[in-house]
C-alpha cells in the first residue's frame, strides 16, 4: 500500500484534533503504522492523550506514534540561518546596516506558514516507514495560507525568473560589446530562484498527489458549514480538492444528510456525538468500539 497522508482541516472548535486522533487510533488498531502530527500551534493532542509531546516521536501504542511540529522552533531556526548567511556574504558595514531591516522581517506576517511548511517537509523526510501520516491542522486562516503558499510562491518566482533572464540578456550584450565575447557566467541569483522554484513545485506536487487526502471537518451548524464552503473555494482556486467531508458531533443523522446535499460531495463520514469526554487513549478506543463511524 502507498503511504497515505491525511490532513484534517476546518473551522476552530469543530473537533479537528479529536477526529484526527480518532482516525489515527482507528488505523493503528487495524495494525497500520500511523504517525499523528500535530501542526496546530495550540497543540491539543497533548490534552487528548494526556501526554507531553514534542518534536521527538512519542510512542502511544505499537502502531501509533505522535509528534508535534514546533512552529516557533522552525521560525527561529530559519531566521537564524538566514542571518548567519547574510553575515558571511555581506561586508561588515552592510550586514550591520541590514540588522535593522532584518528585525522588521522577524515580526512580519508570513513567516508562520513558511515555518509550518518547513516542519511538514521535515516530518516527511525524516520520519519514514509509516503507512499513515495524519496531520492535525491549525484553524482556517493559517491552514489556507499553508496550502496556498507553494502556489503563490511559484507564481512570484516564475515572474522573478523572467525578469532575471532579461537582466542577464542585457549583461551578455554589455560583456560582448566590452570584451568582444559572451561571458558565460553562472548567475547565483538565477540559480537560487531556480532552486526555490523547484522546492515549491515539489511541495505543490506533494499536495496534489493522489495519496494526499484533505478532509474537511464541520459540525451541524450554519457557521461551520459556511466557513467550510469558503475554505473549499479557496483551496479549489489553487486546484486542491477536498477528499472527504467529515461531520463531527452529530446527534441527528437527518441533519447530516442535509449538509451532505449542500456540499455536493460523495465522500461523507459521520462521527457521532459522544456523551463521554474523549480524553485519554483508552477513551478514544472505547468511542470507536461504541460508535461506528458512519460513511454516507
Amino acid at each position: 500500500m502507498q503511504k497515505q497522508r491525511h490532513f484534517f482541516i476546518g473551522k476552530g472548535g469543530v473537533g479537528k484534533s479529536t477526529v484526527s486522533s480518532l482516525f489515527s487510533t482507528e488505523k493503528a488498531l487495524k495494525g497500520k503504522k500511523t504517525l499523528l502530527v500535530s501542526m496546530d500551534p495550540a497543540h491539543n493532542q497533548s490534552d487528548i492523550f494526556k501526554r507531553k509531546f514534542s518534536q521527538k516521536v512519542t510512542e502511544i501504542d505499537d502502531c501509533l506514534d505522535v509528534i508535534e511540529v514546533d512552529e516557533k522552533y522552525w521560525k527561529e531556526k530559519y531566521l537564524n540561518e538566514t542571518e548567519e548567511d547574510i553575515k558571511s556574504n555581506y561586508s561588515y558595514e552592510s550586514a550591520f546596516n541590514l540588522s535593522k531591516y532584518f528585525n522588521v522581517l522577524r515580526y512580519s506576517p508570513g513567516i508562520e506558514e513558511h515555518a509550518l511548511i518547513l516542519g511538514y517537509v521535515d516530518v516527511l523526510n525524516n520520519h519514514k516507514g509509516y503507512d499513515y501520516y495524519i496531520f492535525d491542522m491549525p484553524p482556517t486562516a493559517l491552514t489556507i495560507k499553508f496550502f496556498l503558499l507553494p502556489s503563490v510562491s511559484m507564481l512570484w518566482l516564475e515572474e522573478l525568473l523572467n525578469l532575471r533572464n532579461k537582466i542577464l540578456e542585457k549583461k551578455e550584450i554589455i560583456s560582448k560589446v566590452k570584451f568582444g565575447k559572451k561571458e558565460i557566467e553562472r548567475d547565483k541569483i538565477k540559480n537560487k530562484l531556480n532552486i526555490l522554484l523547484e522546492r515549491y513545485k515539489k511541495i505543490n506536487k506533494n499536495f496534489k498527489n493522489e495519496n494526499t487526502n484533505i478532509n474537511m471537518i464541520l459540525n451541524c451548524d450554519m457557521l461551520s458549514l459556511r466557513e467550510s464552503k469558503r475554505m473549499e473555494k479557496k483551496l479549489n482556486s489553487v486546484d486542491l480538492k477536498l477528499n472527504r467531508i467529515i461531520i463531527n458531533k452529530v446527534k441527528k443523522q437527518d441533519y447530516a444528510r442535509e449538509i451532505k446535499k449542500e456540499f455536493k460531495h460523495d465522500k461523507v463520514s459521520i462521527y457521532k456525538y459522544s456523551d463521554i469526554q474523549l480524553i485519554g487513549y483508552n477513551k478514544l478506543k472505547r468511542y470507536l468500539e461504541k460508535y461506528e463511524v458512519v460513511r454516507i
Partner: protein
Amino acid sequence: MNMFERIKKFFKDIDKIERENVLEMVEKEEEELENIFAVIIFGMFIGYPSPPIQITLDMLPLMEDELNLMLDKVSIAHDPLGELFSILDID
C-alpha cells in the same frame, strides 16, 4: 601616420565613441532592471507590496549589491530628471 592610417583611426574612434554611447545606455537600462528586480524583492523595505516573505529572506544573502543599488536609487529619487539628463549627456 599616413593619410590612410589617419582616416582609419578617425573611423575607429567614431565607432568607439558610438559603441561607448550605446553601451552606456544599455548599461543604464541593465542597472534600472536590476533596481526594479531589487524593488520587487525588497519592496517592503521602502513601502511597496512584496512577495511571500520567505522569498525576500531567501534571496537577501545573495543580493548585497542590488540592495545597495536600490537604497541609492531611493536616495536620488528626489531628482530623477537630473539623473536622466546626465545619462543623456544634457547640460
